[in-house]
């Protein structure tokens, strides 16, 4: 039985992600933010269900669809919002942007714009845990597209070989931009690949936060007890296009039908958790509305914080390239 507190935490963070992303879409339409925007709407249960199963001092890493992961682990939405606005008070002082949120202070080792590129990095964090004989573990999020990258396979082999405390979470949102995983993955399920490394592979309903939590908790136990990695595939769906805001990426929904999108929206992850909690009689509609209202205010404050934060100054261009500055010719 998952505690009431954890279920509330999951629901709160999922709502926070949804509202955060929705606010970003508005800010992009108004021209306040620039660059590409990969929203996590529809996939909230995957990150939240996994992250709530971790300890605060465990590590995560992720990918270009970067906003949901830090929020799921309890990141600061003011800093996240300011980062996406390109402002100095952002997580990365404006130098990372939407695809590269990171908060090392709470174990978020950064999101990678190159798909699968953070998989070896998270594996390395787990290696450090083993070499130092410590308790912490790491978890990495990657997509169905990334699952075809060599980096994934090399890391899973390495982690299985050395029994590293790492959890590979594949967020199968079913499309690499417009290409269906059915047209790019040689097996029925990405989780099937686990058997090639001699590790457990679990296919999970990625719209069900509680199912994600349970699968991750099991993987956490394995990792902490020295039994090595687990591959979890959360089958999910992204509601929006691959990327919003890049003029070069045509708004093209022909790769999937409206009916399909509507069908998935009917199993919305927030609704799934909410109705489950109502069924368990641990939340009322009124309490749900209160959470939503509170989160709405928090997100509005984050937008306000981002708007008010200054842009970095020109003299900050070279800051943080090296620990101590190096003068290039």
């Amino acid at each position: 039985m998952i505690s009431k507190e954890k279920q509330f935490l999951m629901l709160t963070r999922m709502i926070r992600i949804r509202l955060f992303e929705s606010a970003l879409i508005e800010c992009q339409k108004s021209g306040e933010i620039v660059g590409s925007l990969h929203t996590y709407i529809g996939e909230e249960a995957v990150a939240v269900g996994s992250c709530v199963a971790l300890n605060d001092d465990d590590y995560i890493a992720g990918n270009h669809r970067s906003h949901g992961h830090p929020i799921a682990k309890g990141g600061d939405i003011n800093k996240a919002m300011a980062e996406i606005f390109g402002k100095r008070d952002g997580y990365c002082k404006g130098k990372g942007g939407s695809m590269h949120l990171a908060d090392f202070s709470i174990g978020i080792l950064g999101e990678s714009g190159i798909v699968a590129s953070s998989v070896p990095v998270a594996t390395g964090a787990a290696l450090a845990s083993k070499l130092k004989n410590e308790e912490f573990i790491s978890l990495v999020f990657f997509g169905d597209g990334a699952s075809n990258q060599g980096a994934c396979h090399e890391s899973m082999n390495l982690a299985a070989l050395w029994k590293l405390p790492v959890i590979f979470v594949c967020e199968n949102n079913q499309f690499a931009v417009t290409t269906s995983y059915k047209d790019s993955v040689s097996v029925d399920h990405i989780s099937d690949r686990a058997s090639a490394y001699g590790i457990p592979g679990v296919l999970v309903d990625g719209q069900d936060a509680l199912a994600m939590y349970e699968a991750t908790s099991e993987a956490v136990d394995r990792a902490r007890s020295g039994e090595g990695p687990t591959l979890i595939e959360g089958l999910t769906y992204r509601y929006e296009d691959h990327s919003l805001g890049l003029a070069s990426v045509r708004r093209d929904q022909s790769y999937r039908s409206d009916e399909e999108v509507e069908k998935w929206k009917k199993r919305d992850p927030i609704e799934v958790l909410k109705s489950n909690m109502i069924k368990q009689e641990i939340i009322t509609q009124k309490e749900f509305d209160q959470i939503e209202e509170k989160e709405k205010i928090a997100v509005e404050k984050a937008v306000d914080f981002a708007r008010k934060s200054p842009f970095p100054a020109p003299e900050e261009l070279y800051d943080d390239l090296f620990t101590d500055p190096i003068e290039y010719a």
Partner: protein
Amino acid sequence: MYVEALNQAIFEEMERDDSVYYMGEDVRASIYGASKGLFEAYGENRVLDTPLSENGFIGAAVGSSLVGMRPIVETLTSFMWVAMDQLISQLAKMKYMFGGQASLPVTIRAVMYYNNAAAAHHSDRNYPMFMNMPGIKIIVPTFPEDAKGLMKTAVRDNDPCIIFEDGNLGGIKGDVPDNKDKELLIPFGKGKLLREGTDCTVVGIAGGNIHALNAAEKLEKDGISVEVIDPRTLVPLDKKIILESVEKTGRLVVVDPAHKVCSAASEIISIVSEQGFWNLQAPPAKVAAEQVHVPFTQALESLIFPTEEKIMNAVKGTLE
């Protein structure tokens, strides 16, 4: 010897700091020499033989460094190509991209084998490509003392360092100062005057210095006085020692075993042209590798790399 100096440096740093560990392919057996005895001394948690997955294990080294480890990774330059994603997208960029949050004390030992019938896939000297990428410190030691002192500095440095070790220097002999205090630390960005001269400055990169010194000795017999400078690190680069030497000699030849287009030699000549132009009495010259892949046959490979003769001709060319 060069390889022994590196081995000493690694031993000393592993002894000093428990967070230093060593990984690579066949490092326990130490087929290349620099990791000799490490496994016996430090065991399986400090000396890791990896699968042939350069992108995977270099990425793992990067990830471990983010959470407090100080990996030394052994590889060959030619194998770095398959790890470019982790070397560039993560190692080089993380600190800046994450606004300074990441600390990346990773030392990569990149050994360059060339001019020894290794053919195109095992003869890379790719440091100029990494010079072009911000965020990586680039070390090119020529002599055993420098190899040791720069390696130790790299291991203690909090930024990514790649030591490009010239495979032709592995057996080169040289004094390494008494290391009783175990503190032979050579700072980055400080070049070394290898030979004083007045007519022409020759800047040598890695093994290029050996040819440069031999050429200088022969040219002296012809009455030409050559100054030889070893920058020792390319990022950061000691511009001052080069510019001051050119101010004295008025001439510049750069010897670089890398391919000549966009080479370290190109960059050094560019700096001197921009910042020391009025001190030049002749156009600078580049003695770098031919812009072609390294052919297997010794009949052709021997044409590719800098030689004493090419350097002597280049120096004479600046004096015409």
